[in-house]
């Protein structure tokens, strides 16, 4: 039934070699998979524990002394104080910039856990992995992040070996997966990416975030906080660009965007956007269903 994969823990190889299969599917999803010719062959998973030094001495994550020290390629915008020199504490410049090293570290952690999950799937001879669940949780207070991907490896009845030996993957399972196939889409892989944008507030942003100060006479009573709005838009845009780069002409279906903000100090924050979804490819021509007829349930 299975090949022995040298990189997997011994227990995993023993588990896959046993006669029983394991599955993370609910009973309805399990039944739906069998109905469409998908045979669960094993619960597969991949892990990766990552650490990256955000505040190392030479880390560009720290606030620098030059307004132009942050950018490492990618998105960057700078703002200049309109007041001239006021004091050493005055935020005479501000900057938004993409923290590509954080995005890369996240991608490395996710990608490694993903490839390990695929390795397990390949070890059980699966064509695909359905019902994928991914998490990235902090391990206690160690300051490290554990990426965990798991799903149910499946074989397609009477189908040839997977293309290029690479199983396909999807967050969907059961009825939703059946509808996707029926609608003419084949899942290719799960797609996920993180964007990270750092905001170093300049004086006007700081004043507006803390309540407009009319002392400076530069802003009306209320004003849009352009620097932060711009960073928020950029973070979402970058996450979409990263995922689009994984699409290679395919489509992203059932996307989910999760945004988190971390206040690192007054006027200094990080905006992180995680975008995930199913990369799908149309395998048959567009064939819209007829206009549905509405019904009212009487119970």
């Amino acid at each position, binding site marked *: 039934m299975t090949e022995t994969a040298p990189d997997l823990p011994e227990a995993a190889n023993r588990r896959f070699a046993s006669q029983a299969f394991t599955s993370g599917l609910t009973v309805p999803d399990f039944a739906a998979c069998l109905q469409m*010719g998908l045979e669960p062959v094993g619960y597969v998973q991949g892990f990766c524990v990552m650490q990256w030094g955000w505040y190392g001495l030479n880390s560009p994550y720290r606030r620098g002394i030059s307004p132009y020290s942050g950018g490492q390629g990618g998105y960057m915008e700078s703002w200049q104080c309109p007041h001239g020199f006021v004091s050493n504490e005055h935020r005479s410049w501000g900057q938004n910039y993409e923290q590509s090293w954080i995005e890369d570290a996240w991608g490395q952690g996710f990608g490694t856990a993903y490839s390990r999950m695929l390795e397990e799937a390949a070890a059980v001879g699966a064509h695909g992995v359905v019902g994928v669940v991914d998490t990235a949780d902090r391990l206690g207070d160690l300051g490290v992040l554990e990426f965990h991907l798991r799903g149910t490896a499946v074989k397609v009845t009477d*189908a040839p070996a997977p293309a290029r030996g690479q199983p396909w993957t999807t967050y969907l399972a059961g009825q939703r997966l059946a509808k996707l196939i029926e*609608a003419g889409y084949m899942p290719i892989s799960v797609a996920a990416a993180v964007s990270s944008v750092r905001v170093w507030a300049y004086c006007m942003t700081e004043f*507006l975030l803390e309540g407009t100060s009319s002392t400076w006479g530069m802003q009306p009573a209320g004003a849009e906080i352009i620097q932060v709005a711009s960073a928020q838009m950029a973070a979402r845009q970058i996450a979409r660009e990263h995922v689009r780069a994984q699409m290679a002409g395919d489509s992203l279906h*059932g996307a989910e965007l999760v945004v988190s903000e971390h206040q690192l100090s007054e006027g200094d924050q990080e905006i992180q956007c995680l975008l995930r979804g199913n990369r799908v490819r149309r395998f048959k021509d567009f064939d819209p269903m007829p206009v549905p007829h509405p019904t009212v349930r009487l119970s």
Partner: protein
Amino acid sequence: MSISGQLGDPPPTPVDIKAELRRAVGTLHDPQPSKMQSMTSDLSIDEELILHSVGWEPIELVCGVSLYSVPMGVWNWGQGEITSASAAYARAFEGAIDRIHRECAKAGGHGVVGVQVDRSIHRHHIDVTLLGTAVRPVGAKQVDAAHVFVSDLSARDFTLLHVSGWQPLGLAVGASFVYAPRRSIGVALQQKSQNVELTNFTEAMYAARESAMERMQSSAITMGGTGVVEVKVTEGPMDFARHAVGFAAWGTAVRLVAENHRPLKPSMVVPLDDPMTGFEATALRGN
């Protein structure tokens, strides 16, 4: 109301899902990617299919964000409406709507459906985030940002509106922030042992709710709408200033574009599925 095949219609040709799956898996051996246009969408497969059924398609995940400052000191005790906060709320929505309009138009969309509206009110700023999927009639040409609609209706509700001859026009929004009225010490002492209506409270809250609704309605009229559907109303004191109460209302402005409203005439159905879907051990205890 749910959507399903019409009772009495001839049953659709059953799809051999196993054969379809094998066909789909077979295409993975073809290194050529799909020739269809790439899209990104947060719609479910059901929503996408239902959009396709009325000739629309999703094209791009789009968003709009705006933060608008609230001047220092406006939450301090006062009388009547906190106009700076009400204005900041409106400006934050305008900024976010303007940005999602532009993203939608740039992607070639004619509108955005299923918009998630996230609002957060802080002491010194009000943040609004909108996220949804840009859609257009299949193969339609690009339109100007000014002609794009933004709607928090789901793709299913958009389809229902569409088939009944209505068109969404945009998000209609209204808000009003007020100070909870204060009583003089004399009045407070006088009323302490009475069962009495606090008319100043009633009137202030009543007026604020009506102001929020009126502003939402005015914004719908400005867009050319004749009504607002799926109105959400939120209200409550501010976490950081319990004496200040905010009322907000938003929904999708709509207008009839067909000559007459086309009734949907839904069929009545009695589902035969048993609501009891699982075995519960507690049922054995006779509770």
